[in-house]
């Protein structure tokens, strides 16, 4: 066998040369495919750096779908939130009312009434004048403004449901449709003038 190099130049080259060879096409394609798959995976699982999206949630939509939106507990919680924001100041967190400001809601026959119309009309239109609660006639100098007029049907329904099922009250839940019906009939009515006028309204 002839072991002599075929190169006619006897001097070895100082530096080896790549002779213009490029990265093989298959490596380039594989890299591009991997980058593409990685980007797709990130899009589906990464949450796009949203600070509220943690694993095991994959994106904001999935997290959103897991928020409790229905069920009695959610409605009560929604109602409590509205109550704490608006009603709490006068009727108190325990629903016992405040002397000279607001009558108690706990155990009140108006709150626990069979029908929902009068109890819905009170926050919708406001209430002035004397009212008998738990056998005690009460007068409140400043009355109650139409606090519920600015609330949505669902918020008002939730807060009424909360009031009717808290502090030992046992009233039926009020739905957004109920509130809608009462709003259509009595919305925009001037403040109800005492229990005499309240009693003229359907229960």
């Amino acid at each position, binding site marked *: 066998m002839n072991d002599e190099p075929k190169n006619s130049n006897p001097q070895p080259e100082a530096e080896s040369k790549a002779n213009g060879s490029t990265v093989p096409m298959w490596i380039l394609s594989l890299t591009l495919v991997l980058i593409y798959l990685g980007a797709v995976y990130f899009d589906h699982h990464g949450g796009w750096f949203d600070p509220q999206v943690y694993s095991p949630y994959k994106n904001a939509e999935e997290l959103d779908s897991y928020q409790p939106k229905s069920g009695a507990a959610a409605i*009560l919680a929604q109602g*409590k939130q509205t109550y704490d924001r608006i009603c709490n100041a006068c009727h108190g967190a325990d629903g016992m009312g405040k002397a000279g400001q607001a009558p108690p809601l706990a155990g009140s026959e108006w709150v626990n009434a069979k029908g929902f119309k009068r109890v819905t009309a009170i926050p919708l239109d406001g209430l002035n004048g004397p009212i008998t609660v738990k056998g005690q006639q009460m007068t409140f100098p400043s009355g109650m403004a139409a606090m519920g007029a600015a609330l949505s049907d669902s918020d008002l329904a939730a807060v009424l449901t909360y009031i009717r099922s808290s502090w030992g009250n046992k009233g039926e839940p009020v739905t957004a449709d109920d509130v809608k019906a009462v709003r259509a009939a009595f919305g925009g009515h001037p403040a109800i003038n005492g229990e005499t006028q309240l009693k003229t309204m359907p229960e």
Partner: protein
Amino acid sequence: MKSGFRVFLAAFVALGLSWCGFVLAPVLQLGEAKQTQILNSSDTYPIQRTGDATLGLQVYRANGCAACHTEQIQQSGMACDVILTSAGKNSAAVSNLISNLKLTGLTKEEADAASDKITAAGGKSETHIAATGADISRGWGIRRSVAADFLYDSPVQLGGIRVGPDLANVGARLGNANWQLLHLYAPQDVVKNSAMPPFRFLFNVQKIGDVPSSDALQLPKEFAPAAGYEIVPTDDAKNLVAYLLSLRVDVPLYEAPFTPPQISTNVPANKK
């Protein structure tokens, strides 16, 4: 050096990129974090730790607790349970329906489908969401830890090695201050075969005066001091316990929703 500028540029880009990844991106992502609302409640979360608990964090840090304990609960998934709350008028049809339905361990879509079927049959149901995962089934917590849990901690004591159990929810799991003090003084007294070293330097041994101190530890014979002496916790021990008891990851948040064990409003407020 022929390519000095290029070497500088390459080093600058490499360091700059990692700075962006490690410093800039987290600040952009969480730098604006502030108190949030507890899910379905008007209460805010988290509450600033009390003064003694804030000092206790420094005791926790100084004693290297984070070398053996983590404060991060992991969660691998969610499971939904559909619970029938009212069978409605047609209770026979509803009970027939639910006997054929899978109602536990569902995904949200399956749970929604099941709850729609129950509603169509005239019943009412609630969907309860629970976190699942190894840490949750060990009883270390009820949901994963999220950034909001650490809002007021400086520095955050995440920890990385679990020689001991995770402590993110220890205030809710082991909420007894006396137990915590005993455990710090003599871990093997309250947890048999515990690997934790005792932290006796957080306690003073002192002669009993006219009356025993009210906060002296009640120790069994093998850990008790000599007759006439008592063990009382130092301020450091009390602060550390206050910090441990303030570690609670037990409320649902938007980013970590779950159904709390029981929401009941039918309890008179004054009887709670």
